[in-house]
């Protein structure tokens, strides 16, 4: 991660429009956002958003305080740089014939990626990991010619027993 990057985990009401409220706050206040991922939690009423954003300490604190003002936001937590498990999933499609695949399977094995689809003319790969690993894999694959690529954005959870639960008072 770059030095001015940080990860926020946000618990929100699982309701229509919440994602828009959160993302539009970033554009309205001119905050920089690198990635955003969202999904429902074990409690179906609560969704969890993971945001990778950039900015100095002042911006960081403003982002948190402004997010906390949104009615649908239950909790905002700045994830510690160490002690956080961070993962991203990338799907990559390479439209290459069988003959041109030399070296590809070796990379798949070294990076612990997976082949998720295979035809005569194409290979689709999946890789999960920290962003630096995903980036390295993607860079390596460029030589083969990437036909299509999609990333989920980072998601993160703290190590150890500590959890992120909505405050009872909110």
């Amino acid at each position, binding site marked *: 991660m770059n030095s001015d990057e940080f990860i926020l985990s946000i618990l929100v009401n699982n309701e229509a*429009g919440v994602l*828009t*409220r959160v993302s*539009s*706050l970033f554009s*309205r206040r001119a905050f920089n956002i690198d990635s955003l991922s969202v999904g429902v939690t074990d409690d179906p009423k609560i969704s969890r958003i993971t945001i990778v954003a950039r900015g100095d300490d*002042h911006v960081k*604190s*403003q982002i948190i*305080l*402004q997010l*906390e*003002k*949104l*009615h*649908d936001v239950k909790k905002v937590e700045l994830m510690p740089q160490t002690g956080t498990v961070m993962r991203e999933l990338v799907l990559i499609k390479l439209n290459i014939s069988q003959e041109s695949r030399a070296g590809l399977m070796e990379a798949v094995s070294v990076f612990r990626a997976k082949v998720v689809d295979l035809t005569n003319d194409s290979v689709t790969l999946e890789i999960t990991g920290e962003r630096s690993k995903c980036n390295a894999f993607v860079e390596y694959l460029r030589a083969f010619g990437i036909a299509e690529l999609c990333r989920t954005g980072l998601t993160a959870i703290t190590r150890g027993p500590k959890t992120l639960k909505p405050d009872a008072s909110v």
Partner: protein
Amino acid sequence: MKIKGAELIIRILLEKGVDTVFGYPGGAVLNIYDELYKASDRIKHYTTCHEQGASHAADAYARVTGKVGVVLATSGPGATNLVTGIANAYLDSSPIVAITGNVACPAIGKDSFQEVDITGVTMPITKHNYIVKDVSRLASVLREAFDIAASGRPGPVLVDIPKDVQQAECEYEPAEDAVEPQQYRNGKEAFVQAVKLISECKRPFIYTGGGTVSSNASKELLALAEKIDSPIGSSMMGLSAVSHDHPRFLGMTGMHGKLAASRVLSEADLLIAIGTRFSDRATGNKVEYIKGKKVIHIDIDPSEISKNIPAFVSLIGDVKSVLKKLVNELPPCDRRDWHQEVEKIRNSSDRRLEMPKDELNPQTLIQAVNRHAPKDCVVCTDVGQHQMWTAQYYKFSKPRSFVTSGGLGTMGFGMGAAIGSCLGNDRKKTVLFTSDGSFHMNMNEMVTAVSHQLPLVVVLLNNNTLGMVRQWQTLFFGCRYSNTSLERRTDYVKLVEAFGATGMRVSTLEELEPALEKAFAAKGPVLIEAAIDQDEKVLPMIPPDGTIKDIILKA
């Protein structure tokens, strides 16, 4: 017993103590208006000429009463016409609930007639908004809307209710216990630090904003000033919290603030900012603004702390309760040297800033209106030079007696605001200072004032130009008056007479006196058009991003 969604809306309004609603009927709110008809003995609805006027009226009503203002509009254009009013309330932290109708749920997303995604449109300008697609949620959403609008830092909430939800039936259950207001926790350390800073400083300056007004904290503010022997300055939104005549009050600071207030502020070594957000119009250059001083920031909104100006110590919470606690913990201070210095600066005011006393000009006009207006009168403004002159020359003596568009700077705010202020102040005399530019934007609401025979005294400063923009063109754009000279031929006297109001025109001080006497004696709305020189400037002026050193005293 089951009731319809539309009736439920009325029940919740009554539950929340609403007796006044502003709005405009239409297709998607017919059911609600039908219920309003049945409840007309308990809720008085005021139909404006345009939904924007209704939204400003609700905003002003909220500011004057301290209650939540309510505005009602139909779907599509009705809803979008509220947008400026909602944004205005958002920027000035005014608590309003806007209720809009929408097309029936099955028609949503089909670009149906008069369909607009108003929750999408108003998302960035509301504290929160809702579209209610299930009638069983309607009651809880409406109650929550009122709670959100009024709690914490107040602001607008919009509730969009599709037509079929208004028609659907549900059970009505009276409100459960009211929600506990949020408690703000300041570490003990914060108060200790604040007390230390205040005790150790030599030249404190209390800078008060709109939060002091909305928190009804005038008494506590003055108690603080007495205890620590400090002068008080104000943002524009903070005006009226302290009586203009109070010996500790120096007036407005900022771009068009009083010279003495700005000078004293620049000399201070401690700025105690209360219920204010350090707008760029108030600070000028933000680095220079706080040079040589520490800042204690008291506000109910934690995100305001260090947003624009870094705070050395912050106290979060309702201004009134924070000030009470702070005053209790502070030892009394005597700052004779600083006091003397402040008085010296106050009395060295620049003569060039005084307009001639023997002619009709903005200063003599506003002061004359001030003399004629009753003490309990609310004063509204539109936006532009006349607004700044009012902020500079009118002597506000009672909290919540000044209603103006601060953050958004909405030309056209005035007429709706005057209507809402008048109705929020027991239909007492209400003054509106406006101008040819602003009045033309929403003058249609004079019609509404006539319908309800509201005792408005509308003072229109006519300089045949967009004065504030012209002032900037003079100072910063080489006198190139691009599109600001208005070649309008409006006869304001005939115009308001056609609407059913009384109109008068004055061009000298001699004409002004009898006109004001007549206006303040009238039962219904009166407009006085006063001729003003188009090169009259609002001074002093600290240029944008400037400092006290750049202050313009004579143009």
